C-alpha cells in the first residue's frame, strides 16, 4: 500500500471520487490553480479541468450556498472552507438549508454535500486559525460530523462522506496534516511515513460513518477522543502507565454509542478529551450519554479535558492546548477517584 500523509490521503480521496463520479466537484478559496493553502486539492484542477475544480470568491456563504444548489441539482460538491474559524458566514446555509432540504421537501430535494475544513490549533494560528467548532454542527439535526485522526481514516471517511446522500461536515485536524502529534510540541516532528496509519489502500475504499475504533485496549479507564486528541491520549496513557482503553470516535454524528458504552461498562471510568472549549462542547453530550447509558457501571465521575473557555490565544497556545500532562492528570484522578 502507498504511504500517505493526511494531506495526501485527503487529496487522494477526492482524486479517486472525481475519477469515478463525474458529478463530484471541488471548489473553495484558493483550491483551484494553487491547490489550497494546505495543498489538499493540489493537482486536481490540472487533472479534471477548471469546471470540476476551481477557485471561489472569498465568500463562505456563497461557497456553501452555491454548493447546496449544485447538490440539489444532482452534483456531489466537496467544498473547502479555508479554516474552520471562517465557517460562520456559511453557518446559515449549513443549518437552515443543507441540513433541512431532505426533511422539508420530503425527499424531493437532497443535499449530498461535503464541507471540508481544517480544524484545531497547535500551529500558532491564534484565535482565528485554531478553532474546533464541531459542537456547533452536532447540535444540528440533518448533519453528519466526521473528524479523522490519521491518513487511513481520513481517506476512507472522506470517500464515505462524498458518497453519503446527506450533508457531511468533515473536520481535518490541521496539526495532523503532515504528521501525528501527541501534544509534545517541544519534541521533533515525526512524519506520517513512520506511522502505521499512513498505510493507505490505493483506489476506492470507504469506511462506514458511525463506527468508532478502539485504538488502545485497556481496563482501567475509557478515554473518548477524536482528531488530534487521539494521539495526545495515547501519549498520556503511555506516560502515566495507566491502562486506558482509548476510543477514537471518528464520527461524532452518527455516534457509535454501542462501542463507547461497552467500553465504559467494562472499565467503569471515563475521561473525555477534546480541543474545543469546554462548555457546551461535544464532550458535554458524550458525558450526558455515558452517564445515562452506563450509570450503574460508573465508579467515578466522568472527567472532561478540553480547551479552556477563552478564545484560542497566540502566545499561550500550549497553556491552552489540552496536552498529555493535563490528560494524564485527569486519567490519574479518574482512576483514583
Amino acid at each position, binding site marked *: 500500500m502507498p504511504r500517505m500523509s493526511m494531506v495526501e490521503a485527503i487529496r487522494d480521496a477526492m482524486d479517486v471520487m472525481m475519477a469515478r463520479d463525474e458529478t463530484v466537484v471541488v471548489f473553495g478559496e484558493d483550491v483551484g490553480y494553487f491547490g489550497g493553502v494546505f495543498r489538499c486539492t493540489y493537482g486536481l484542477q490540472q487533472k479534471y479541468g477548471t*469546471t470540476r475544480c476551481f477557485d471561489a470568491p472569498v*465568500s463562505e456563504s456563497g461557497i456553501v450556498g452555491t454548493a*447546496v*444548489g*449544485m447538490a440539489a441539482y444532482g452534483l456531489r460538491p466537496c467544498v473547502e472552507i479555508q479554516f474552520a474559524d471562517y465557517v460562520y458566514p456559511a453557518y446559515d446555509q449549513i443549518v*437552515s*438549508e443543507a441540513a433541512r432540504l431532505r*426533511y422539508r421537501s420530503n425527499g424531493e430535494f437532497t443535499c449530498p454535500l461535503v464541507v471540508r475544513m481544517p480544524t484545531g490549533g497547535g500551529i500558532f494560528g491564534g484565535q482565528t486559525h485554531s478553532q474546533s467548532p464541531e459542537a456547533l454542527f452536532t447540535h444540528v439535526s440533518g448533519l453528519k460530523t466526521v473528524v479523522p485522526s490519521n491518513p487511513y481514516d481520513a481517506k476512507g471517511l472522506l470517500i464515505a462522506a462524498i458518497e453519503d446522500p446527506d450533508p457531511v461536515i468533515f473536520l481535518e485536524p490541521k496539526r495532523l496534516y503532515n504528521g501525528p502529534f501527541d501534544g509534545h510540541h517541544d519534541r521533533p516532528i515525526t512524519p506520517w511515513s513512520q506511522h502505521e496509519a499512513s498505510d493507505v489502500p490505493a483506489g476506492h475504499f470507504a469506511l462506514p460513518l458511525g463506527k468508532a475504533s478502539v485504538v488502545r485496549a485497556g481496563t482501567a479507564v475509557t478515554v473518548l477522543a477524536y482528531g488530534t486528541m487521539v494521539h495526545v491520549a495515547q501519549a498520556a496513557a503511555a506516560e502515566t502507565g495507566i491502562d486506558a482503553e482509548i476510543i477514537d470516535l471518528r464520527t461524532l454524528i452518527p455516534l457509535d454509542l454501542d462501542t463507547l458504552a461497552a467500553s465504559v461498562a467494562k472499565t467503569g471510568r471515563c475521561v473525555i478529551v477534546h480541543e474545543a472549549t469546554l462548555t457546551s462542547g461535544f464532550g458535554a453530550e458524550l458525558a450526558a450519554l455515558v452517564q445515562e447509558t452506563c450509570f450503574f457501571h460508573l465508579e467515578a465521575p466522568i472527567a472532561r479535558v478540553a480547551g479552556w473557555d477563552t478564545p484560542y490565544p497566540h502566545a499561550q497556545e500550549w497553556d491552552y492546548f489540552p496536552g498529555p500532562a493535563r490528560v494524564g492528570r485527569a486519567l490519574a484522578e479518574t482512576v483514583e477517584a
Partner: protein
Amino acid sequence: MADIMPLALHVPEPAVRPGGVPDFSSVKIPKAGAVPRPEVDIGSEAIRDLAFSIIRVLNRNGEAVGPWSGLLTDDDLRDGLRHMLTLRTFDARMLLSQRQGKTSFYMQHLGEEAISCAFQKALSPGDMNFPTYRQAGLLIASGYPLAAMICQIYSNIRDPLKGRQLPVLYSSKPHGFFTVSGNLATQYVQAVGWAMASAIRNDTKIAAAWIGDGSTAESDFHAALVFASTYKAPVVLNIVNNQWAISTFQGIARGGAGTFAARGLGFGIPALRVDGNDYLAVHAVAQWAIERARRNLGPTLVEYVTYRVGAHSTSDDPSAYRPKTESDAWPLGDPIIRLKNHLILQGAWSEERHKQAEAEILETVIAAQKEAESFGTLHSGEKPSAREMFEGVYAEMPPHLLRQRQRAGV
C-alpha cells in the same frame, strides 16, 4: 474643527403613514411601449437606463404596444388570465380557511398575480425556480394540482410534505418549484449554484431566483450576485418590489439607490425594471432574460415593480403602518383587470366570458378544497403521524433517532 457641524442620522421614512393621503407621485412611470428592446447579447453598460425605467406593454387603453409586445397568442393570454384568476380565487379561499381555523397561517398574492404566472409561461420543462412564499403562481401556471397545494396548507394526511413544513412553503421538483425556505434570501444563491451545476454538466436547463424588495438587504443576495457575475451562471435573478417588507417600506432596503435593479449594475449584470402588474410586459422581459441564460450569456437581474395589496400574511395588519387606501392609489392598476381589458379590446374575451370563467374557477377551487378537506385540516381528521416526524432527517435513520422514535413510542 470648531466650525464643524454636528452629524445627524438620516432615517428614511415613507411619504405617508396611516391618516395621510396616499402619494405615489414620486414613482415615475414611463409610457407603455416607450422602452426599447435590445438584443439579448447586449452588454449591461449599454442598457443602463433599463435599470431606471419601467418596461410596459399594456397602455391605459388596454392596447399592447411597443417593442416588447406581440409575443403571446390570444390563447396564451386567456391561459394567463385563467392562471391569475385561479391564484386570486385560491388566495381568497385560503384566507378564509385560515380564519376558519383550518390552518395556522397563509400568505396571499393580491395585486402580484401577473409576476409568477407570466414568468412561468416563459420557462421550459426542467428549468428550476427557487421561489419565495409569494410565487404560488409558478405552481398554478405549471399545472400543479390545487388539491395538493391545499393539503400542504392544511398539513393533512395527504400533505406531500408530511406536515413538516409551514403552510405555503410548497415543494415540487417535477414542476420546477424548489422547496421554499422560511429563511429569506438563502435560496437566491442556491439558484445560482443550481444554474452553475447545469453549466458544469453542459445541460440546457436554467434557474430562476426569487426575492422580495426587503430581502435584497440580506447578505445572501450579495453572494448570489458575486457568484452569478463571476461564473456567468445561467440564471434569472428576480426581485419582486412590492413596496413593503412587512411594515417596512422599500426605502429602508433600497437606501440611496434609485432602484433595486441598480444593484445589478455594480456587478456588470444586465438589469431591467418591468411593470409587474402587466402580464405581457412581465412575460416579455422574462422571455428575454431566460433566452440570455439559455444562450449562456449569463445572468439577468429583473425588478418587478408592483404593490402588495393585501396584508403581509395572516399574522399582519397593514392598517397599522400605511394608509388603508394606499393600494387604490397605486398607479400601475390591477393585473387581472388590465389583462382582461386587453383581451376584451382584442375581441378575444368578454365581460360575460369573464364572469363565466370566474364562476368556473371558483368551482374548481372549491372542488379542490373539498377534495383536500376530505383528507382533513390542521386540527381535524387524521394527521401526518408522529412517526413521519422522525423520517427524512437523513436518508437512513441513524441509531440516535431510532432510539428517540422508540422512546416516543411511535
